[in-house]
Every structure is written in structure tokens, then in C-alpha cells.
């Protein structure tokens, strides 16, 4: 903002005084607070001066000038309030597929009823960490941008969100605290893996047939010989990555894949192993989303072809806690089992 009284080469003590003043935030209404920016402090001081001169002198032209300056301030505050009040919530933001410890770059447009050129800062805090997004508003829409990096997996309500802007004139800093009913679904960090059908997963390659069954996204480590190069060449223009052929015998192609996740945590296993297990389940769900398949998570089963069920599965993975191990601490192994129905 090219609007700073510091440009006027004010003495240091005056700038420090201005900085002390701009730290003051006064309550405006329930949930609203208002403070001043540096130019705002100077503007308000000038406004007080003009009103004092008007009251003292009874000069009605000074009354007019002071009214005009006051109205400019009021209009700025009201337009800022209107902007924050009509600011889109989190419904427009893709907060459902965040991953733990992974940076998610947000760049998302949303319609904005208030036509104001403004920058709005959104801040919220929950058990997953502190988050901040910026909304760049121009006529009719807002562009959300920022980076989100949740620290913990889970299902979190957004809760109290702080919206802050200095728009439209850069004189007043308005702050609105409002409660959002939206939630953040923080998934475990996705762990690419390849499981062979009907086998305990860890480290096993895919049991292949002679004919390729379907395609899946490329995962680092896949043999290059299995990349579908013709497809890759045709996808150059789009955002799609390489795809890898999966082979299977003819009889199996009609079967739907299924993943069974045992959530019981044996005594020697730690939380990290549990997170890895969920990461793999999440990876598998991503691979099979929208296709025929079944994810069994503990006692719950989800249909991967049904988007609603997938959403439920995601919530279940995000909210997953280790189950009770069998008596004696031996229990079943923490395991994934991919098979066919």
C-alpha cells in the first residue's frame, strides 16, 4: 500500500507514536473491532482538528468540510463492514482433502457480492494448527490464496474465524470474528504403495496377468515399461500425469477390488505405524475413487464408486483412532488386505 505517512519522513518518535495508536482496537459491535492504520491515524487527527475548529468558530463551511471528511470515514467503515459481512465462507474452499504435514496451495475463485477492491485476511486456529488465507477481492469475485499445512490428522471444525481488512481506503482496520460451521478434513499423509491382490500388502508387487486391466496414476518407483506412453503423449496438454497399466488375468477383470483395513493396534506398534497404515488406505481410496470397489475400515464398509460414500470414508479415515488389541497384547497384525469381491 503506497499510502504510508512514513513516506513523509516523519520523525521516529512520531512514527512510534503512530504505531502505538494503531495497536488500539476498539469494539464496534458484537464480533466487530475497528482500529486505525498509520494514514488513518493522521486522517482522524485532521478530522478532530477540523471539527474542533468548526465547533469553536461556528463557521458553517468548516462544518461542511468536517461533515464531508467524517462521511468519508463512515463510508469507508461501512463499506469495509459490508465487505466482511458478505465475504464468502469456507464452502467455496477445498478444505476437505488436506493432508497432514503436507502443504496445500490454495488458489480458488469465489463470487463476491460486494464490489470492492480489497485484500482480506482470514485467520483461524484449531488443534490442527494456525491457518491464514488471503482473499484478493476485485469487482465481483474474490481469489483466495495461501498455503495450508495442518499438523495433525483429524476432523476439525473451523470454529472462530477472524476476517480482517483495511479496505476500501486503507484508513481503518476492520476485524470480524465469525463462527464457521464448516470443517476441515485432514487426511493422513498419502503413502503410495502397491499391493498384490489377495495378499498381505507390505512390499509385494502386483500379481499381473497377461492383459492390462486398467490404468492408474503413476507412482514414483513404477517401472517405466508399464507407463502408458501413448496416453501420456495425449495428456501433455492437460494436468494429468502419467498413467500406468495394471495387468490381470482375464477372469479377474470383472471383480471389484476391495481393501480391508484392520485398525487394531498391537502393543508393540506405535502411533506412527498406525498413521502409515491410514496413509496407505487413503492412497488406495484415491486410486479407486469413482471406480467399483470397497473399502472396509475396521467395522465400516464404503463403496468407492459412490462419491457420498467416499466422502464418508474420508471422514472416517481422518477421524480414525486405533482399535483395542486382542487380549494378551498379541492381537492381529496391523494390516491391509487388498482382494477382490
Amino acid at each position, binding site marked *: 500500500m503506497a*499510502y504510508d505517512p512514513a513516506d513523509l519522513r516523519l520523525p521516529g518518535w512520531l512514527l512510534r507514536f503512530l504505531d502505538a495508536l494503531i495497536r488500539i482496537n476498539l469494539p464496534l459491535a458484537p464480533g466487530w473491532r475497528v482500529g486505525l492504520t498509520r494514514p488513518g491515524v493522521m486522517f482522524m487527527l485532521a478530522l478532530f482538528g477540523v471539527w474542533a475548529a468548526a465547533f469553536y468558530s461556528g463557521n458553517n463551511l468548516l462544518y461542511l468540510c468536517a461533515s464531508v*471528511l467524517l*462521511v468519508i470515514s463512515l463510508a469507508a467503515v461501512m463499506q469495509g463492514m459490508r465487505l466482511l459481512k458478505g465475504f464468502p465462507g469456507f464452502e467455496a474452499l477445498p478444505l476437505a482433502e488436506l493432508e497432514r504435514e503436507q502443504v496445500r496451495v490454495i488458489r480458488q475463485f469465489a463470487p463476491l457480492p460486494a464490489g470492492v477492491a480489497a485484500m482480506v485476511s482470514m485467520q483461524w486456529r484449531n488443534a490442527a494448527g494456525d491457518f491464514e488465507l488471503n482473499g484478493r477481492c476485485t469487482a465481483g469475485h474474490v481469489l483466495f490464496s495461501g498455503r495450508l499445512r495442518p499438523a495433525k490428522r483429524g476432523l476439525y471444525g473451523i470454529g472462530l474465524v477472524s476476517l480482517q481488512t483495511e479496505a476500501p481506503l486503507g484508513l481503518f482496520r476492520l476485524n470480524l470474528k465469525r463462527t464457521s460451521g464448516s470443517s476441515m478434513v485432514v487426511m493422513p499423509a498419502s503413502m503410495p504403495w502397491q499391493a498384490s491382490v489377495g495378499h498381505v500388502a507390505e512390499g509385494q508387487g502386483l500379481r499381473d496377468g497377461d492383459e492390462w486391466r486398467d490404468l492408474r496414476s503413476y507412482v514414483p518407483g513404477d517401472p517405466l515399461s508399464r507407463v502408458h506412453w501413448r496416453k501420456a503423449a495425449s495428456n501433455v*496438454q492437460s494436468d494429468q500425469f502419467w498413467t500406468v497399466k495394471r495387468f490381470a488375468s482375464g477372469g479377474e477383470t470383472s471383480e471389484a477390488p476391495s481393501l480391508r483395513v484392520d485398525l487394531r493396534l498391537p502393543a508393540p506398534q506405535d502411533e506412527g505405524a498406525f498413521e502409515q497404515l491410514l496413509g496407505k488406505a487413503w492412497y488406495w481410496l484415491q486410486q479407486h475413487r*469413482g471406480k467399483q470397489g470397497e473399502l472396509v475400515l475396521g467395522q465400516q464398509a464404503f463403496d468407492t464408486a459412490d*462419491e457420498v460414500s467416499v466422502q464418508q470414508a474420508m471422514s472416517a479415515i481422518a477421524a480414525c483412532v486405533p482399535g483395542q488389541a486382542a487380549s494378551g497384547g498379541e492381537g492381529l497384525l496391523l494390516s491391509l488386505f487388498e482382494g477382490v469381491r
Partner: protein
Amino acid sequence: MNSESSLRTEKLTLAVLMCGVASLALSDFVSPVYWSLSVLAGLLRLWLGPRFSLSELQASMIGWLGFFWVGLELALGRAWIVAFTDFLLILAMAVVIEAPTARNHLHRMLVGVFLVLAAAVLTDSVLYVFPLIALMWFMWRASVCLYGLNWPGGDLTPVPAKRDMPTMFGMALLAGLLFVAMPRFDVHSLLQPTQPRKETSGFSDQVQLGDFARELDATVVMRVEPMQAGLSAEQIKAFRRQIEGRYWRGTSLARFTGRGWQRQGGVSIRHWSRNREVELWPGPGLEAAVYREASDHAYIQIPDGLLRIHQLPEPAAMSAGGAMTFDRPPAHRLRLQMELGGRTDKRFFSTMHAPDSVDSSTELVPAALKRWVSEVTRGAADPAGALERVVDELHSWTYDLNASIDAVDPVSSFLSIKRGHCELYATTLALAARSLGVPSRVVNGYFGGQWNDVGGFLVIREQHAHSWTEVWLNGRWQRLDATPASRWSLSGVRFPEIDAIWETVKLSWYRYVLEFQESDRTALAKQFWQQLRTYGIKLVFFGLLLALGLLLVRSMQRMRFWQRFGFSTPSWPVLDRWLSRRGCVRQAYQPLRDVAVPMGISENHWYEFVQAWEMQAYGAARPWNRRELKRHLRAL
């Protein structure tokens, strides 16, 4: 800062500064040379852009040179207020041509606002409202532009100016309401709006009879309107009947010098301090508000039948000769609230003291005049009858503003050519009375005035300045006016219709802005309530119509808005139904980009479709209607 934003901001901050210069240019204290310099520099800056600029150091040198120049002006005797405005305008010129930096933008905004504030004290012109409204507009837009500069990701594009128009309209309305609502405190100071004291060309307290060769001067001296607002047409007509045709008494001149008249050094018989009630006679009367322009004399023009003046705005005194003066000539326009009796009410004359020797002096009465009087009054029974004959004779002569009167012996010259102006008629009559042994004096003031039909008020101009005679007959002062009636058919106003409108605008400005007081707020509220009661039903009806219209416009705008973004419009259900038929379920919050590729659709085609959809949804392309969407989906 990109060049487009920079250029836009540059123009807007320049406009803020020019509003300040324009407002100060309205002041009569400002030399046109200085504000022309600033305007010229501004025009060159607009034309040539930042190429026409000086470094900050060079610009500050201009400011310092201006400072020393103004110091020199003061040393040479220029009035401090004029020198101060000169300095402000030199400073404005320096800021105009300063290099376009962030600091320069702030300089311009600050100087622009300061000039407008300074003009609030240095002018009272109705035209001040234009730079003030323009300042509000340009300051808002310039601040929006300045706020939008240098953000991460580039400058913010301000919303188009036309979208700020309703905001501006609301702001102007709110400013008006605030102006009315804010409390007034009765503390007067130097910060009152000032106007240069006008040099009077008609009325004077010292008459030189020989140098009278004048054009009729249409400069307004006073405006007189009913005190009570919201009168009916009939009431205004009645006011007109009562206020027109009155003499407005200024000064009385008793000492004849042979070539003119001088005011006798009078003794104040009464004195009133500020805000006191001047009560001459009891009883209710016609309530009139008199707006007296600032002039180079301190006289209060007293109309016939004056009963009292409410809340005298400045201290004043009354002399034995019946002249009322402020202690010093006021530097700004004053509103005098007078209460008047009937036009023929002569009680005021009884407040004046009996004549002294100066009023009867015949020392310098020309012999020619004495001879002429004896001829005219031959056979008259008494002095009153003799004076009546003199008046009748003078009425038959010709009124001429530019008669060639001999400056050495003006009265004899007048008697020989029998044409002249009112002071010659008044002088001749006064001297004739003295030669008949009747004490007399010449009184200068105004007579009549011009009724303004547009605004419903009386305008008294310099051209209405008049001289008449007062004689001591039957133990009291009496007025005699010897000027021929043809004098009142003359007028110096060139375009009376336009002038009537302009004068109405000016009086409204004085009445409702410059002279707005605490009491006016109550009167305004009462008037508003009366109007509301009279036109209440019509207002409610029109209000409902307006609300319906606004609702309609708003819903249409809303529809256009949502159509533009394809949100909750008929387009989305169509798309969602199409997606579900192809095995995809889109959540309400889910952008199309995040939806899986529908069954049976090539990925390439799908992503091309998504891209085209987003372009139309976010305004980069023309929005689709339902039929166009279906066409695109069929093409998939």
C-alpha cells in the same frame, strides 16, 4: 506499481489538489495570477505526464522561494491574508510539478485538503460547494487507488467509477444530514467565513456633489426575506406589500461645505453589546431577516417603522442624528433579525434629538438658491406650505445620473440646468428649508428595492442608494423627498430573470448553509413535519413505488450476478443432472475442476470443457445460458 495504476493515481491526486486550488480561487483575497500558475502547472502535468516534473529538491526550492517572495510582499505592505493565500498557491504549484512518488501523492492530498479548509475561512461563495463535492469524490477515488498499490500479486484494480456513484450520492446526503444535526456553539472568532468589505458606490457618509457621474451599480447590498420559513404564496404576497417601498435610513449629514455634505461628529446616545435585543418600540410587527453584505462602512440601514432587532450580531450604537452603526465595519455578512411596524409608522423620528445650530446653518447657502427659493415660495402662507411648493417644483425637473455639474458651485449649476441626481435634489431642498428658517439635513440610505419573484425576497442594490431630506417641522423631524419618480424606473440589472434565479441560489446558500443556526434545526424539523403531514399519503405511495422499483432492479442485478458466476442458476442443476447420469456426484461446495472425469467422456475433452466453463463463470468469457450449456455438453 504498474504504469496504468500509477497514471490513474497521479491524475486523481492531482485532481484533489486542484479542488483545493479551485476553492481558494473563489476567495476575493486571492490574486488570479497565483492560482492561474497552479492551474497552468496542473494542465501541463496532465498533458505531458510525469515528463513535466521537478525533483523533490527543486520543488522544495520553489516552495522556499515562494516563502521569501511572500515575506517581501509583506514588507512591501501587502495584507497578510493576501500574502498567506499567495504562499499557499505557490506551494500548491510546487507540489503539482513535484516528481510522482508516493510522498508526492500524500503531499498533494494534504495540500488539497488544507487549501479547501483555508478557503472555508477565506470565502463565502456559493460556488464553494462544487470543489467541496469534487474533493469528496476525488479523495475517495484517490484513496482507493493508493490503497490498491503495491500488494503482493500486483496492484488491485479499483472498481469502476460508476459503481462508486451510489456511494457518493449516499455520502453527500449523509454529509448534509450531519451538517444539520451537529450542535452549534455560540463562539465567534476569526475563523468565520470572511469576505472583502465591498466599497460602496451609492451610499456614502460624505457627499461630494460635483463628482457624481455614475453608472447604476447592481451590486447587492442587502437581501430581506420573511423570518418564518415555509410561508404560503398569500403570506409571501402580504410580506411583499409590507416590505416594499420603505426608506432604509443610513446616515444623516448636517454640515454643508458648499460643495457637499459632511457627517457631524455625533454623540452616541445608546449602545448595545452583542446578542442584545435592540428594542425601540413595543408591539408585534413584521418579522424580517436582513442579510447585510460586508461593506466599508459600519452603518445599519434602518427601515421605516423599525421596532426591534433581535440578537444583535455585533456591538452597535445609535447617534443623536438617528444613525445606527456597528462599532467597526463587520468583515463578513451579517443576518439581522428585525421586527417592523407599518410603513407609515413615524415613531422612530421621535427618538432623534432636536436640531442644533448645524442643522440650521445658512452660512454657505448659495445666493442663487436663496433667490430661487424666494421665487418659488412667493405667496406661501407658512414654511410648510413653502416647502411643499419647493418639493413640487423639484419633482418637475429631470433625474439624470450623468448631468454635468460644476464641482465648484454644484447647487447653482444644478439650479441652472435643472437635472441631476438625488443628492442634488436632497441638497437643494435641505438648503431651501434652511433659507426658509427650517432646520434640515440630508439623509443617505436606500429606498425601495427589487422584489425577487423566484425566491420571494427583497433585494436592495447599490442602485437603490438614495438621498432625501429631513426637516424640523411642528416640533419633530419629518421626511421630504424631492427626487422625481422617474429615478425608480432605472435599473442596472442586465438579465433580470437569470439574476433572480442566481440571487435566490445565493440567498438559499446564505440562509441554509452560512447562517444555519441551532434554532434553524428546530424550524427545519417543524417544517419537515408539516410537509410530512400535508403530503404524507402521497409520500407513502411514492415510497412504496420506489421500493418496488428498487426491489425489481436489485433482483435483476442479483440474477445477472448469479448468472455471471453460474452459481445456483438454472445452469448448475442441468450440469449436476448430466454429471450424475455419468456416475459423478458433485457436492455443492465442489468446483467443477475437482469433479472426477465423467464416464464415457474423454479426459482431454472434459478438461477443455472445465476450462471453458471456468472462463465464462469468472467473467473471462461471455456467460452461458442454459441452451448454450446443453450445446457444450452435447459436444462432449
